[in-house]
């Protein structure tokens, strides 16, 4: 029932529909890059170096004569992969940590939350840079660094829910029936926090994409041979004066994707929990 109401609502909201379309297109681009891109991503055309958009190369070419559109389509793979996987890993770490902390209560909870407070109070990007110095600037390094930093928001959320839920009768009943802590966490606590978790996840993905592209842009992120939208923008940065198309198109792809996720997240949050609207 509730699900249908959501679709009803989305149908009336043109911007939300547009956001969903953008997200689907980006995911499709990432999944089917080899079939969708007009040229293989490393192919060079010596006759078309640094050309602006044309019919042959829709978004123009870079300094090696490679098709920018194809490179953006391939770049979506790294950006989306990092966004999705790091958010999922953060979700898993955060949910389990938060559930344990909330369920344990008292001193354990206090101690576990102090750690969260410390990580939370430091700027994300600073920590991500520090961690990626250690793990290295590969795709996996960036994704781990992102996950290791962003789990704290989720831990706080789940811990709060766990504190609220554990006093409720159904948890007490489960305990009375001899359910183990593990069972209580996975069967009773986490399924009851799905709504807020989905909303948080919708906001984590764009945040991860933003962090990754920013790092890659300043040269601290993904390194060749892989390229994300951030590295493409970084390539274009040096040529901004004469070939602005090289930086405008990747930047626009990043912005549009993040905006779509954020708008969808807002809509989802308003729908699932109208009271949370402004918090």
């Amino acid at each position, binding site marked *: 029932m509730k699900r249908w109401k959501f679709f009803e609502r989305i149908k009336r909201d043109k911007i939300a529909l547009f956001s969903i379309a953008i997200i689907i297109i980006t995911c499709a681009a990432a999944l089917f890059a080899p079939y969708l891109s007009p040229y293989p991503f490393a192919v060079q055309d010596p006759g078309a170096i640094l050309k602006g958009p044309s019919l042959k190369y829709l978004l123009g070419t870079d300094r090696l004569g490679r098709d920018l559109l194809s490179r953006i389509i391939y770049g979506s793979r790294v950006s989306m992969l990092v966004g999705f996987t790091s958010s999922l890993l953060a979700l898993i770490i955060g949910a389990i940590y938060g559930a344990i902390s909330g369920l344990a209560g008292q001193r354990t909870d206090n101690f576990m939350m102090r750690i969260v407070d410390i990580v939370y109070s*430091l*700027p994300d990007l600073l920590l991500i840079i520090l*961690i990626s*110095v250690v793990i290295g600037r590969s795709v996996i390094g960036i994704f781990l660094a992102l996950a290791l930093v962003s789990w704290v928001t989720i831990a706080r959320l789940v811990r709060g829910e766990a504190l609220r839920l554990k006093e409720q009768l159904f948890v007490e009943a489960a305990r009375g029936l001899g359910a183990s802590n593990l069972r209580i966490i996975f069967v009773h606590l986490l399924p009851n926090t799905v709504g807020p978790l989905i909303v948080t996840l919708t906001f984590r993905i764009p945040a991860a994409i933003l962090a990754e592209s920013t790092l890659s842009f300043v040269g601290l992120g993904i390194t060749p041979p892989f390229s994300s939208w951030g590295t493409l923008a970084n390539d274009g940065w040096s040529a*901004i004066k004469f070939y602005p198309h090289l930086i405008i198109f990747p930047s626009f792809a990043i*912005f549009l994707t*993040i*905006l779509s996720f954020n708008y969808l997240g807002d809509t989802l949050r308003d729908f699932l929990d109208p009271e949370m609207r402004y918090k």
Partner: protein
Amino acid sequence: MIKLIFRRFLWGIPVLFFVASLTFSLMHVVPGGPFDKEKNLPPAIQKNIEEKYHLDKPVITQYLLYMLSLSKGDLGPSYKYLGRNVNDIISQTFPVSLELGLWAFVIAIILGISTGIISAVRVNTLIDRVSQFVATAGISMPNFVLAVLLILIFSEYLKALPAALWESSRYAILPSLTLSLGPAAYISRLTRGSIIDILGKDYIKTARAKGLSEPLILFKHVIRNSISPIITILGPLGATLVTGSFIVEYIFSIPGMGKFFITAVTNRDYPLIMGITLIYSALIIIANIFVDILYSVIDPRVRMK
């Protein structure tokens, strides 16, 4: 009250200690030393360098030495900028970052609160919808994308403002605008929500029933009561400005702490990385304490607790 502030400051010490230990261990798990690039050095010189920076000693000794000098306020020598202390570098670059941050802070607050108030008063009208969509867009736009846009428009096409360096106040306009847009958008959304919330309260109805004029109600009753959530986010806002400043300083080639941080990471200048991280953490701790104080000044109920 004073006790509370004092306790918060005391809590800052273990946090800083934790941050220092964390960054120290992170920097020392990394394989390869900072002087790897100069591999061709004769072994004797290599040995001298290692001795000078205590790199020949066990990690534990290095840690203790670092902590000891840290407790005296000495952040150690820079590995890259020979003959310069981390303290010197920070004291030269910090004022630049501070100026940029303050400009951005002021712009964010003025822009965010004013658009938030306008949106809330004209809720669900076209103005409100447009400004809220712009706010969502502002939150979604990475700093570097905005910077690129501003540079293309104002420096390349209009040739009105400089795109790099830090010489006069004209140089501060584009970077501080870039840095402030995200926080401004955030404040705008928050202000709008908070004011809409207060507008629905009974005492506003009472004020209206008394026949008070709308501007009076807005400024005396609504805004004063809706300001506290905005103050709460000033702390996290400080953090946002800090991280934003890496990127903005890098893009606009501003000789601030953030730019040095990024070059320090690329150069593996560990003492500089640790030093700047510590300064950032200390700043954020102080910002949060300041927010607490401000909070209790604005909302006396907090003081009672």
